[in-house]
C-alpha cells in the first residue's frame, strides 16, 4: 500500500505518473515501476473514496463537561427528492 498520505497528494501523484507514462520517455523498467506505483495510488484513492464510513455524530457535553457522542438523526433524510 502507498504510505499514508492525503487523498489529494495521492491523486496528484497518480496524475503525474500518468502524464509521465503518456510522454513515453521512460525506460520499460521505469515504466513498469511507475505503473505499479500508479496502480497503488489508484487503489488508494478508490479506497479513500469508498471505505470511509459515513457517520454523522452529535457532540454534546454532559454536566461535568465531558463530551458525549450521539448519532445524529436527520429527520430530513427520507424526504429529500
Amino acid at each position, binding site marked *: 500500500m502507498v504510505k499514508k498520505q492525503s487523498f489529494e497528494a495521492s*491523486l496528484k501523484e*497518480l496524475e503525474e505518473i500518468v502524464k509521465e507514462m503518456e510522454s513515453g520517455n521512460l525506460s520499460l523498467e521505469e515504466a513498469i515501476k511507475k*505503473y505499479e506505483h500508479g496502480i497503488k495510488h489508484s487503489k488508494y484513492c*478508490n479506497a479513500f*473514496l469508498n471505505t*470511509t464510513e459515513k457517520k*454523522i*455524530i452529535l457532540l454534546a457535553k454532559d454536566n461535568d463537561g465531558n463530551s458525549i457522542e450521539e448519532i445524529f438523526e436527520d429527520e*430530513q433524510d427520507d424526504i429529500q427528492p
Partner: protein
Amino acid sequence: MMAEKQTGHIYTVSILTREIKTLLEETFPFIWVTGEISNYSVPSSGHSYFTLKDQQASIQAVIFKNQKLKLRFEPENGIKIYGLARLSIYEPRGTYQLIFEHLEPEGIGSIQIAFEQLKRKLSDKGYFDQKFKKPIPFLSSNICIITSGTGAALRDIIHISKRRFSNINLEVLPVKVQGAGAEQEIIEAIHFANKRQKAQVIILARGGGSIENFSAFNSELVADAVFLSKIPIITGVGHETDFTIADFVADLRAPTPSAAAELAIPDKQILTQRVFELRQRLDKSIFVRISHLNDMIASLTYRIKIPEMIIYSHRFKVEELELRLKNQIKNAIRNHKDKINGLTDMLMHHFYVIFQRNKIKQLELMSKLKALSPLSVLSRGYSITRFAFDKKIITDSIYVKPKDRLEIILSKGRLISTVEKVNG
C-alpha cells in the same frame, strides 16, 4: 441674573423665552442624542414630528424634509435611534424640541461602528492576512460543523454533504448562534474541535438574519478563536451580502452555509470519475507500451529466424543438387549401359559373323584335317603304338623293354600286346 432677580427685575415672557432659547441653543449647539421614537407623524409639510423617549423622559423632536432624504432607513414608532441634533425652543408655545440633522437606527449604528472598529483593529493585528490562511484540505474524511443544532444551516450542510460525498464523517457541535452565551459556545466549540483533533476542517455556519443576529460572529473573542484554530475554518454566515468579522478571519469564507459545505466537500462522483480515467490512461499507456514492445520482439524474433531459413534453403539446395547429381549419375550409367548393350550387340553380331566364317573354315579345315588325320593314315595300314600304361606314343624302340604291355591302335580296333623282343 441672580443679581437682577434679587434687585426685582421682571422678565416678560418673550424676553425670558428668548433668553432660555439663547442659553439652550448655545449650551447644546450640536449634540448626539439617543432614544426611542414614538408619536411619529408626517403632516402635509413633509417634515417628520415625533417624540423621542426613554424610560424616564421624553423630548419633542423634528426632522425636516431635506434632512430626511439623506436617511438610510425610514423612521417609525418603536425604533431606537441616535442622531445629531440641535436643541431649539419653539417660542410661541414655550416648548423645546430637538431638530435632527441626521438619524440612524441605534442598534445598527453602534454595531456598525463597533464592527468597523474591530475590523480595523484585527486587520492591523494581521488577522486577515493571506499568509495566515490555512489551506483547506482537498478531501477531509472528517468535518466538524459548528452551528445551531436545529437551524436550516445544519440541514443544508448535511444535505449537501450527502449529495456530494455521502461517506464523509460529520461531527456536529451544536451551539447557540445568537443571543446570550452564543459567543462563548462558539469559542468553546472551536477549542473543543481543536482539542479533539479529529476533524480536518471546521465549518462555522449560521443561517440568514439581521446584523444584530450576527453579533456572535462579529465578536473579537470569536475572531481570536477562529484565528488561533489549528484546524482550518470555513465560514458560511447568512447570505451572499453578509460579511462578519469571523468571515474575514476565517481561512475561507463561503457566502452561505450550503456554499461552505460545497467548499469543504468535493464531489465524490467527479473524483471517482477522475481516478477511473487516470487508471484507464495508466493501463492504456502500459499496454500500448507492452504491445509495442511485443511487436518489436516479434519482428526481431522473425529477423533472428532468417539465418535458420538460410540454412533451410541451403539444405534444400544441397538436397536438390544431390538429387540432380544422382540423376546425373543414373543417366550417365544408363547411357553407358546403353552404349555397352549396343556394343555387346555389335560384338555378338560380329562374333557371330566371325564364328560363322570360322565354322565354315573349320569345316573346311576339318575335312582337310580329316584327310591329314593319323586315322586316315591308319586306314592306309599304319598303326600307332603306345604304352598301355600311360598311353605314351612310342616312336623309338629304345623306350621299350621286353614284357612292356603296349596298345596298338589300328584303323579299326586296338590290340593289347606284350613285347617279346626289342630290336634296335
